[in-house]
């Protein structure tokens, strides 16, 4: 495997990072909305978001990407693979992050909400200033764990036909017939992205466990 092949892999890596960042950012924004709706106390909103989360947690990411990819085309939105995969991963992330954050919003002691209400803080201020800062702290290890899942999930974009790291690996391996070397390197590149996050997540978790003792 020569220098050009490696550079091609790095170009794929760039798209993997871009996909992960976009899906995580938009997933955070929409995931927050999902979590807020899921804990809103409004029965129909809670039902709807619970169903939304159950669907995404009960089906394979690959199928979700397929359905979004072909579904968008169906309703007349022409998108290239990159945009369609971003939408698919964003929806996936919003459901999972929504569920993680629902858990952490509910883990904030009730007294906090009651105290905020007693101080006559409105919903927005109550959430923004009291509940969410604590919930985010609680959710951080799980959120980072999901980010690792998401980075690994971007590899499925290759099956839909988007050239990110895994597909770049596929292309190179078909060219130079050294699949083990190529996928070994691809694996190492993913590992270098994910492992620091995993270690950081585990570190945070230990810190919180120690703090809550």
């Amino acid at each position, binding site marked *: 495997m020569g220098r050009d092949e490696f550079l091609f892999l790095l170009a794929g890596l760039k798209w993997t990072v871009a996909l992960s960042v976009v899906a995580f950012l938009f997933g955070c924004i929409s995931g927050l909305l999902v979590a807020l709706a899921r804990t809103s106390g409004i029965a129909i909103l809670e039902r709807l978001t619970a169903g939304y989360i159950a*669907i995404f947690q*009960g*089906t*394979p*990411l*690959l*199928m*979700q990407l*397929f*359905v979004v990819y*072909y*579904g968008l*085309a*169906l*309703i*007349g939105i022409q998108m290239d693979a990159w945009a369609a995969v971003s939408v698919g991963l964003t929806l996936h992330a919003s459901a999972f992050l929504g569920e993680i954050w629902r858990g952490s919003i509910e883990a904030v002691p009730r007294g906090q909400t009651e105290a905020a209400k007693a101080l006559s803080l409105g919903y927005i201020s109550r959430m923004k200033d009291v509940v969410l800062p604590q919930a985010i702290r609680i959710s951080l290890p799980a959120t980072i764990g999901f980010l*690792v899942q998401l980075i*690994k*999930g*971007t*590899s*499925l974009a*290759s*099956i839909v036909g988007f050239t990110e790291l*895994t597909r770049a*690996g*596929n292309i190179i*391996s078909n060219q130079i017939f050294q*699949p*083990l070397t190529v*996928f*070994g390197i*691809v*694996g190492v590149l*993913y*590992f270098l992205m*994910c*492992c620091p996050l*995993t270690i950081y997540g585990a570190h945070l978790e230990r810190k919180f466990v120690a703090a809550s003792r």
Partner: protein
Amino acid sequence: MNYTLDFTPVIEGLPNLLWACLGTFTLAICGMLLAIVIGIGGVILRQSPVKLLRWLTIAFVELIRNTPFLVQIFFIYFALPLAGIRLDPTPTAIIALGINGGAYAIEIIRGGVQSISKGQVEAGLALGLHKAQVFRLIVLKPALRAIYPSLTSQFILLTLTTSIASAISAYELTSVSQRIESDSFRSFEVYFTVTAFYLVISWVMMRIFALFSSRYFSYPVK
């Protein structure tokens, strides 16, 4: 937008799809069994007195947990023939699923084993139980109950992961649906239906796990 949904190819392919569901179940169950074996073996290695073995197990777990399954399955798919093992895609997928699930199982089971206090092990040894008996009766069963929820949700994930085995064209739901899709070009209809199938599959799995738990793990704690 003048597209009319046409589910005819899906309805015609229904028998094939239902058989493929069985394929998905087979992959999932065989993968789980292998994962449990690897998980238990890994935990034993992880606690062995030999430093190198402990270290290798940790490296294995972290390597698997921090790389995508798709890359793992490709690697195994190409590595097995080089090692002189010629297998069809489906057994290859089972091995990949087992290795992937096994790495997660090691971490989960280890957490359960650590939750058993040392005093209980010592009490077991003091009663004259053999080391293997202590492991099976005092460590394994209570630990299994403690880890049951996280282990089963990991298995649901493993079941959903089987769809990635379509990348090496193992026999399961996704690869069969891809074949129907490429014959009929009714992509959305096919994948929409198959997504619903997966939802049912994971729901059925969850029910089975819950049933099993209420039968075998419902004895009182204290």
